[in-house]
């Protein structure tokens, strides 16, 4: 820091602006670079982030991991894509509108005229396993004895459990594979949580920003409105609405959104109230910047720290809300893959502990990972935190 920068005399040649340095695609400001370093320094959070990302990205491709349709079929010299295209059964010599690729007749037909490439798990979330050796809910196949498996295995010429299709984590009470439901359920939970947390943050930040920036009557009226609004019991409203219509994914999202956006308002409002008197905000007003520009360019970055700190916890809250609604039976329509519904089945079928345990462990893992990530993000944004 040298104070003695030579004062350029006006007579000297006109000063030239340096070319803007380009550093890769994203130019991180030093502040963000420091935050990123802090985030990486938190090993638990950093690893949780990557584990979660791998699980999430994998679950986004659930159709390619667990599906009752083959990924690729070569039939009589023609390449078919059952994952993407619905072929009527006529194509394979049947008469149904949809092809059941798990049907032994169709499987045999395809095997004789070509080949089929299957996903690792041959069940989708709504596939009923018709060849269960024991009544549903069936335990994981590795828990069964060869004795129990023999009747099913003999249909395909086998002798024991090694020769039948495996349900790695058993099936639920309708004979649906738990692994497949888990993968789809994880995806729908995380997506629901992300969308709900994302939209409610945007609305919450905007509402908080307007209240904090303008203050006065706007603030006063809005605050009272929020107090009244949050007094409405959301759960009862949901129960009433679900009695009238079957709540789909988006209806559920909309109803929960009505009440979840208020969670960020307080924090953002406080940040804006504090920061609107900062000198650089005053300077921006003196430069003639409009209110909207000042809010976005100068105030929002301040509020983002608080917002980002809260975001993972809102995300977790959203996931838990969906799970608990499913558990109570007011959530997604019947048949949807849902972790909450799996827990409810576990409660209804205490003799089948694999249902409850699987649901518990997956939810616990998902929420723990997200909380670890959230904790690391919070610490990374804490300016006073020093890492050794």
């Amino acid at each position, binding site marked *: *820091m*040298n*104070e003695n*920068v*030579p*004062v*350029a005399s*006006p007579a000297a040649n*006109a*000063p*030239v*602006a*340096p070319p*803007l*340095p380009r550093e890769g695609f994203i130019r991180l*400001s*030093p*502040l963000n670079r*420091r935050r990123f*370093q802090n985030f990486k320094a938190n090993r638990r959070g950093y690893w949780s982030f990557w584990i979660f990302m791998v699980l999430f990205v994998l679950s986004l491709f659930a159709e390619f991991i667990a599906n009752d349709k083959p990924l690729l079929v070569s039939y009589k010299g023609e390449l078919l894509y059952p994952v993407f295209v619905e072929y009527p059964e006529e194509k394979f010599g049947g008469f149904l509108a949809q092809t059941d690729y798990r049907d032994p007749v169709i499987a045999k037909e395809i095997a004789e005229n070509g080949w089929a490439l299957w996903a690792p798990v041959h069940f989708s979330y709504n596939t009923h396993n018709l060849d269960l050796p024991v009544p549903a809910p069936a335990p994981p196949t590795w828990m069964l004895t060869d004795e129990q498996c023999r009747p099913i295995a003999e249909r395909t010429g086998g002798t024991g459990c090694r020769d039948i299709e495996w349900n790695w984590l058993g099936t639920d009470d309708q004979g649906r594979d738990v692994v497949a439901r888990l993968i789809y359920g994880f995806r729908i939970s995380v997506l629901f949580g992300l969308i709900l947390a994302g939209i409610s943050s945007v609305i919450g930040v905007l509402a908080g920003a307007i209240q904090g920036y303008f203050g006065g009557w706007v603030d006063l009226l809005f605050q009272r409105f929020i107090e009244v609004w949050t007094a409405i019991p959301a759960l009862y409203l949901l129960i009433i609405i679900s009695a009238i219509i079957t709540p789909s994914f988006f209806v559920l999202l909309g109803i929960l959104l009505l009440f979840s956006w208020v969670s960020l308002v307080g924090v953002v409002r406080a940040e804006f109230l504090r920061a609107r008197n*900062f*000198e*650089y905000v*005053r*300077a*921006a*007003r*003196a*430069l*003639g*910047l*409009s209110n909207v*520009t000042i809010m976005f*360019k*100068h105030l929002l*970055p301040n509020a983002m720290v608080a917002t980002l700190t809260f975001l993972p916890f809102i995300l977790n809250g959203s996931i838990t809300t969906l799970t608990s609604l499913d558990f109570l039976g007011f959530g997604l329509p019947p048949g949807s893959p849902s972790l909450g519904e799996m827990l409810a089945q576990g409660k209804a079928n205490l003799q089948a502990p694999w249902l409850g345990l699987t649901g518990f462990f997956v939810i616990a893992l998902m929420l723990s990972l997200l909380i670890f990530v959230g904790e690391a993000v919070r610490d990374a944004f804490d300016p006073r935190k*020093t890492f*050794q």
Partner: protein
Amino acid sequence: MTEPLLSVQDLSVAFRQDGREMLAVDHVSFDIKAGETVALVGESGSGKSVSALSVLKLLPYPAASHPSGRILFKGQDLLTADENAMRRVRGNDITMVFQEPMTSLNPLHTIERQIGEILKLHRGLSDRAARTRTLELLSLVGLRDAESRLNAYPHQLSGGQRQRVMIAMSLANEPDLLIADEPTTALDVTVQAQILKLLAELKGRLNMAMLFITHDLGIVRKVADRVCVMLKGRIVEHGTVAEVFRNPQHPYTQKLLAAEPKGRANPVATDAPTIVEAGPIKVWFPIKRGFMRKTVGHVKAVDGISVRVRQGETVGVVGESGSGKTTLGLAILRLVSSEGPVVFLGNRIDTLGSREIRPMRKDLQVVFQDPYGSLSPRLSVAEIVEEGLLVQNRGLSYDDRRAVVARALADVGIDPATMDRYPHEFSGGQRQRIAIARAVALEPRFIMLDEPTSALDMSVQAQIVELLRDLQKRRNLAYMFISHDLKVVRALANHVIVMQNGKVVEEGAAEAIFSRPQTDYTRALFAAAFNLEADSLNAVRE
């Protein structure tokens, strides 16, 4: 006494940040004898506060560490002492007065409780005895009607009174050494003089030693026996005050001593056109009471003040904090609502809405006090300076904008090649230059300067004053200069307005006011500012 009371030997302090060790204090040694005042002088960041804090081990350990050194207090090494031993020393043998009296008192406790706590803790006094002693202390530090103040909370006291309470707290156990960390920097000049007088008196009466940390050489000359000049974590010069001031050896000391703002204002042409004419301006904030929030009175921040600024002229506005000088400036800029006409370049702007006034903001700019607060930490320097251009000069292409930014930065003495760096990479003085560049980039006619030098180190202040005067001459700017620092005002202003409680106390040509102040208030202000002498006429409130 041959043995010094406190002996700091070869002390180093290192901070760890982002995995790097930064040496804040670099092998520093000094002694303090009993009853002596030693001053540590240097710019911010020179390590003077850190050295003092390490005496009491109040640094943020483990981020801070001491690679070398010993601190001997009465023969005991404080650096190796454990936490229990340190607690016996802190608040008992060595006490400290901090810079900011508002934040160093707990806002939730009464004065009695805060002072009594120390007495009970270190001396085991009963409630009644502690109360008597507290009263004694408060009258010792010159707090008037001490009895009725006992139950006051910090926010009910003025800055000077709070600092007196802080001093009373630090004297509670009759320490051998008082560490005063810039105790007057946050105070008005008049109050500063009173506090310095008090400290000098108390030191004589209680025969304690004092370690005085400051950046102001005027204070050093007034209070200290010996002085250590610090630069970048090292003591570059030390000796008795008389010796160092008469015959400074190190070039840095010489620079510091020569750093006072010099020169006088640029002369104004007699026929210079009027840029801003405002007034009488009133800014009244309503005081609301009761359930229905009825307005029961007003805080008259600015009460009928008229200002006229001509092209190339600087109008200085001086006064203590709370006198309404900043509010006056904001009212003229239309950043707070006010009553009364404001005429800018022949147009009345006080009746315009924020959208209509926007085009005029180009000619009407402002530089704020705190160069750390007035630059957004998230934008690069180029983005900060070009911000106004994006609104006021929409037609400019990206390259043109950067050219304008480069020109503005060069004008204020910042290398344009550094324009893509972020504010935290610049020192306080450089940041203030950037803030000035932001104002100048729009080529305004009028700039409001709200204490632009008060947050800066002494040596930098003079440079900024030079820069402002130079810019004014080259661009024929009109300034309104708000400051409590009379030395800076004298170096810059043509016309001076002295304010107190929202009203004009005295007004006139700078030369006349500085040479022949008419009112007691102005005289007291000048005595405090130029000679650090407390007012004896009771013209200023505490």
